[in-house]
């Protein structure tokens, strides 16, 4: 079994467990909805102002939900010493990491797919225009959130106050990604296309994903096998 096959097997295992118990996906989806409702009380905005902050709102919701999902990634394997068993298996550490990141990616995409229409409905944002381009931004930024999140979930798995420590580490690292994603999403909602200034934000997302995927895949061996 090659490393990628092992990664896919682990991703399938995680997704199956999650879709049967639905423990983190239910929590993350309801949390996203609660935040969306809270934001509507926090800001009393006109239509233009709302469009100006729409991308920021959406990505705050997504990154909050993302932290909830990646938190479970490695924590799920702690009871019954499952993590030790996985590490003792012939699958290399990086394929364990990639599998976890892929399953978190799919779960976060599901949560995002649920909350995007609700967001459009609550805030009267026309998100369907430019949808293919929006999808590119969402795919890139979601992968960034899950790959960094899964790496930090491995770092914090044996840490006291894990649930508190993960966001403290994760959000500062995600700042460049979120700046890029928020800017492009706002522009796309306003009917712009992914050209000019928005293309440079897109390049930032691609660069972030490439750098952190490489760094995490390379360093995960040191994180998991101490």
């Amino acid at each position: 079994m090659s490393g990628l096959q092992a990664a896919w097997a682990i991703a399938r295992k995680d997704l199956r467990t999650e879709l049967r118990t639905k423990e983190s996906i239910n929590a993350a989806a309801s949390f996203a909805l609660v935040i969306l409702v809270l934001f509507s009380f926090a800001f009393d905005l006109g239509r233009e102002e709302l469009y100006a902050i729409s991308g920021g709102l959406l990505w705050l919701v997504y990154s909050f939900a993302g932290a909830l999902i990646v938190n479970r990634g490695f924590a799920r394997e702690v009871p019954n010493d499952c993590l030790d068993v996985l590490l003792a298996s012939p699958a290399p550490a990086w394929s364990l990491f990639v599998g976890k990141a892929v399953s978190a990616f799919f779960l976060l995409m599901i949560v995002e797919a649920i909350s995007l229409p609700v967001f459009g409905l609550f805030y009267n944002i026309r998100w369907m225009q430019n949808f293919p381009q929006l999808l590119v931004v969402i795919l890139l930024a979601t992968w960034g959130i899950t790959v960094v999140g899964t790496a930090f979930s491995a770092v914090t798995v044996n840490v006291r106050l894990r649930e508190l420590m993960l966001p403290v580490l994760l959000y500062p690292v995600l700042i460049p990604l979120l700046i890029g994603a928020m800017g492009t999403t706002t522009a796309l909602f306003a009917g712009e296309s992914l050209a000019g200034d928005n293309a440079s934000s897109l390049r930032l997302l691609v660069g972030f994903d490439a750098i952190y995927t490489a760094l995490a895949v390379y360093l995960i061996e040191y994180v998991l096998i101490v």
Partner: protein
Amino acid sequence: MREKATYLLALLAAVVMIGNLHTIFTQLPDEAMQGAVYRIIFVHVPAAINADIFFTIALVTAILFLATKKFIYDSVTVACVEVGAMLTLFNLVTGSIWGRNQWGIWWAWDLRMTGQLMCFLLYMGYLLVRPAISEPTQRATMSSIVAIFAYADIPLVLMAIRLPNVRTQHPGPVLETGGMAPAFRGPFAIGILAMFLISAALVLVRLHQETAQREIDSLRREVHAR
């Protein structure tokens, strides 16, 4: 011997710093546009430069720890990050005071300031995660990983905040463009040296504490093992 070297370094730092302050406050004239407050530049910029120096050392020693698993590198990393974070905070505070005086506001979301603040937050994550892990090898490994991730993020943050919707307010670089009056250059260079000497002395003190702490911990474990 090492203690003596530390004290000697600290003494040297104090002499250089006080001598330089004497020059800055009594010999140099007020700046034409800003008046007396421009003197902050002699500590504000050296703090930023030295923070970058110590964060770079921390990156190198973090990588060396992962490669060799020698705890001395971990001690150097934590000492450098602590001193670097302190210098960054000092840089932010002095800059803020200058901004209040010159701009009338304490803070602007300017690219340099935002970048520096993110840098501070990233390394605070490093300092927060350390006490949360009790097992020494694990603590050193995980925090080294966090130090590497933090350093990798800085160029990306700088790129992200250069995106078009971010304003610039911070004064431009005066060093490369030769905009600094010749009389100011000497005290400025000595300011960098003085800040470096103080920081190096602090790093040595922290390093000494770290090694002592490690010895105490291993003695305690030995006693418990009996």
